[in-house]
């Protein structure tokens, strides 16, 4: 049996393990003592490896390039030469006809690694000539990146994952750590065992709420009001650190004026919380010698996401909980390399290493290194801009790499319409997905396990992962495919290996310069920023000496008025739908749905969880199939009745095809980060009288969809390579 070291391809914890390989097949996993996981793994880490082997449980691996001559035609198998030629020709045509900004590209926050993301943004900027490059951070932690960049100067976790176990107080806000990052949940439990106080703010009684010292079950959509009330208590009760505020922050007077209205009594109706509990939370937080705030999608997936992030960083600034060990602000990243794709400039406003595209000197540096006369200076489009840009005729070509927007983006009807409205769509993935079914050209990439590279964990930790098995079929590495398209478009791009790409990145991004492949060998790691090769492991925490990465060097205290969510409930759609995740499945499910063990735990159509009182009122029994509809769509799913769900709200996980909650969510976005308000859609839940019909319907629909995706790959597999004129 061979052993190949890897980093888990699921959440952002960055757990290290060995892949066990027999006869070129991954047969198991052995935990390793990585810096973030210290020998522990969760169920996805331990039993989520077999998707690499092409199990075809949910959907098959892509094994050869496929093309369809027209949108109503079936896919045909084509050669790589043809595929590259088609991609280059179509993109060149669109570019010359409509200009470079008519093409949108995505990086991937998943298994492809940092190097591929570097090559993709280079392709967009240097080859196409646009900053239209983005990644799924847009629909996830983009508000954290934008909010923290404004208040503290750096959008990442200020602390390290290990530090979570060492802090004296954890304020966990809108973050279901048990389901999102089980191995980080262990740190929360460790902290608690060492005497840390745990405060949890979440409308749903999540696992950490159960274990918390103080649980604040706030109403869905009241985050900003609660954060302002927290600040109000810190100020009115003199719990804040006056010398820290005076020396290291700015904007206090304005901040104080805005939050003065938000007394715990004033927000009692908005949040549904007892004013004394709000006060108690801040007394605990302020009294702790070290305190850490952690948050997740419950903070970011709102139209007020950026504002609440800024508000939370204000609490840390007010109490001096930054710039030293075991404190800080932790937006804990969901996908294994979503921190990495942001680091590598797969964002429309920054080059790799968070260097603004609007800075002429930075542009000149990159243009010189990349051998182009100039680089685009206008901030590009975001992935959530795509539907309306297509509608207005601004976008004509789309290069989607390792993402499945037709499953994961809000309002899937609008997503499908936007893909149909494009002249040319490439999907480059490892699996046949719902999005790939809508593409013109489908390019098969190597999976995690079949290539090497560097991932960035949620806490800025760069770690290397290695190839364990040979590529399947005709799969090529993502970065090879992009480089070949670039070359065919007249921009010669050649890399021998990922290290060559990484070293180009290090040269161009000072924050990452010290992170060499050699230092990251084996269980090695480097946390950025790491400016010098001599700096062994980089920065465990940010803002040493309380120097914030802003022009003044001070942190910004920021507050703003609360407003209610956009999609309002009414008599037709009286309940709130909040989309969430579950521990056994990941993202669009193309990976976990192809893992025997994980798919065994949970399968279609998924669940809508609801409170027993709501269920009784609606006449719905546990495990019955129900209809859920919104102003945008209607789906069928299974009711799960639990007292952990608050009354008036229902929760669905977003990876199901039949119970696809994103058919229901809407296009209401945060004005700054354009992150959708996944956490609040007005819906109606209805019982289905004929359960037998419903069960059959779900099975038929599921089988038909699986058959369609599988057929697209298998029918072409038998084909000879078509000659496409």
């Amino acid at each position, binding site marked *: 049996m061979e052993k190949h070291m890897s980093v888990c391809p699921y959440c952002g914890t960055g757990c290290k393990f060995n892949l066990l390989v027999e006869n070129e097949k991954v047969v*198991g996993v052995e935990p390793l003592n990585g810096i973030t996981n210290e020998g522990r793994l*969760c169920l996805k880490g331990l*039993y989520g490896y077999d998707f690499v082997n092409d199990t075809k449980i949910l959907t098959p691996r892509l094994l050869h390039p496929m093309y369809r001559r027209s949108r109503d035609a079936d896919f045909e198998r084509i050669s790589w030469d043809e595929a590259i030629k088609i991609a280059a020709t179509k993109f060149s045509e669109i570019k010359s006809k409509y200009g470079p900004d008519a093409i949108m590209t995505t990086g991937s926050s998943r298994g492809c690694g940092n190097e591929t993301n570097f090559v993709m943004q280079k392709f967009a900027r240097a080859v196409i000539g646009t900053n239209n490059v983005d990644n799924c951070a847009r629909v996830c932690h983009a508000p954290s990146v934008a909010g923290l960049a404004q208040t503290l100067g750096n959008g990442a976790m200020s602390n390290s994952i290990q530090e979570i176990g060492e802090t004296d107080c954890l304020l966990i806000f809108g973050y279901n750590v048990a389901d999102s990052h*089980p191995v980080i949940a262990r740190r929360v*439990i460790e902290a608690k065992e060492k005497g840390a106080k745990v405060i949890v703010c979440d409308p749903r009684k999540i696992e950490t709420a159960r274990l918390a010292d103080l649980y604040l079950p706030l109403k869905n959509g009241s985050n900003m009001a609660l954060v302002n009330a927290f600040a109000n208590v810190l100020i009115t009760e003199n719990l804040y650190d006056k010398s820290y505020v005076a020396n290291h922050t700015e904007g206090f007077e304005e901040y104080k004026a805005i939050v003065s209205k938000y007394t715990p009594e004033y927000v009692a109706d908005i949040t549904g919380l007892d004013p004394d509990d709000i006060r108690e939370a801040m007394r605990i937080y302020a009294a702790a010698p070290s305190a850490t705030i952690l948050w997740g999608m419950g903070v970011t997936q709102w139209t007020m996401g950026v504002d609440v992030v800024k508000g939370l960083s204000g609490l840390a600034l007010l109490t001096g909980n930054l710039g030293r060990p075991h404190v800080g602000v932790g937006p804990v990243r969901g996908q294994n390399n979503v921190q990495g794709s942001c680091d590598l400039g797969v964002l429309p406003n920054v080059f790799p290493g968070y260097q603004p595209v609007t800075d002429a000197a930075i542009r000149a540096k990159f243009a010189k290194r990349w051998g182009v006369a100039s680089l685009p200076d206008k901030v590009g489009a975001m992935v959530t801009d795509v539907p309306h840009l297509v509608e207005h005729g601004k976008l004509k070509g789309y290069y989607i790499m390792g993402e499945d927007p037709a499953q994961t983006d809000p309002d899937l009807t609008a997503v499908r319409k936007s893909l149909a409205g494009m002249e040319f769509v490439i999907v480059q993935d490892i699996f046949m997905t719902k999005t790939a079914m809508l593409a013109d050209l489908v390019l098969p990439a190597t999976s995690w396990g079949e290539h090497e590279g560097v991932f960035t964990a949620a806490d800025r930790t760069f770690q290397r992962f290695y190839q364990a098995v040979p590529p399947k079929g005709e799969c090529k590495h993502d970065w090879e495919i992009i480089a070949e398209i670039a070359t065919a478009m007249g921009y010669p791009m050649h890399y021998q290996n990922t290290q060559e790409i990484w070293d180009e990145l290090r040269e161009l991004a000072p924050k990452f310069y010290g992170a060499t492949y050699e230092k990251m060998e084996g269980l090695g790691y480097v946390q950025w920023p790491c400016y010098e090769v001599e700096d062994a492991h980089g920065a465990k925490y940010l803002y040493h000496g309380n120097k914030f990465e802003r022009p003044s060097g001070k942190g910004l205290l920021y507050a703003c008025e609360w407003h209610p969510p956009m999609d309002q409930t009414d008599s037709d759609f009286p309940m709130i739908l909040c989309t969430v995740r579950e521990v056994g499945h990941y993202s669009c499910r193309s990976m976990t749905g192809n893992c*025997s063990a994980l798919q065994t735990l949970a399968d279609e159509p998924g669940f809508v969880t609801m409170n027993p009182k709501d269920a009784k009122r609606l006449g719905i029994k546990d495990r019955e199939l129900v209809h859920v509809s919104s102003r945008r769509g209607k789906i069928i799913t299974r009711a799960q009745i*639990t007292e952990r769900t608050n009354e008036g709200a229902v929760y669905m996980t977003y990876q199901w095809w039949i119970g696809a909650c994103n058919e229901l969510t809407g296009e209401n976005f945060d004005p700054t980060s354009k992150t959708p308000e996944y956490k609040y859609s007005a819906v109606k839940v209805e019982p289905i009288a004929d359960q037998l019909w419903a069960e059959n319907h779900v099975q038929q629909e599921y089988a038909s969809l699986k058959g369609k995706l599988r057929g697209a790959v298998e029918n072409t597999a038998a084909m000879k390579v078509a000659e496409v004129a």
Partner: protein
Amino acid sequence: MNRFVAADPGKCIGCRTCEIACAMAHRPDGSTEALAPTNFEPRIRVIKTATVSTAVMCHHCEDAPCLNACPEGAIVYRADSVQVDQSRCVGCKNCVMACPFGVMEVITVPAVKSIAGIQVSAGVKARAHKCDLCIDRAAGQACVGACPTNALRLVDEASLQQSLAELRERTAIAAIAV
């Protein structure tokens, strides 16, 4: 004293890693591949109520009601635990009714007979199905090893005596404080 696996609800996050670890440990090939909803039969179950998340499994009782209820003598004390001799199990479910914790099940598996070297189907075979402490697994209890939050531990006589001694000491110190 019989050993048993104890779960700490203060550490459990309800992730069900233990359930998969258990199911995997009892697959002959040790592979995830053949795992499917129809054959997923973990001997440890994660239970979530409004206030509790924890795993439940066999207590390996000292005076085991399942053992006492078995008319076939299929349940025995062995290796400081309660074990089932599956060859004697007839699937009468007395043990299921007797278990006060709801952690004994009777399942059926396809039975095969070997006739002149040829495997032929022989209907189904019943099995009293419960935690066997992974006694045949060199690495020990699979659930304990896999739990990401260390919420599971094996309790044996020595570890129980040690925690009891610590508790008694704490009780004594508390008495002085009063």
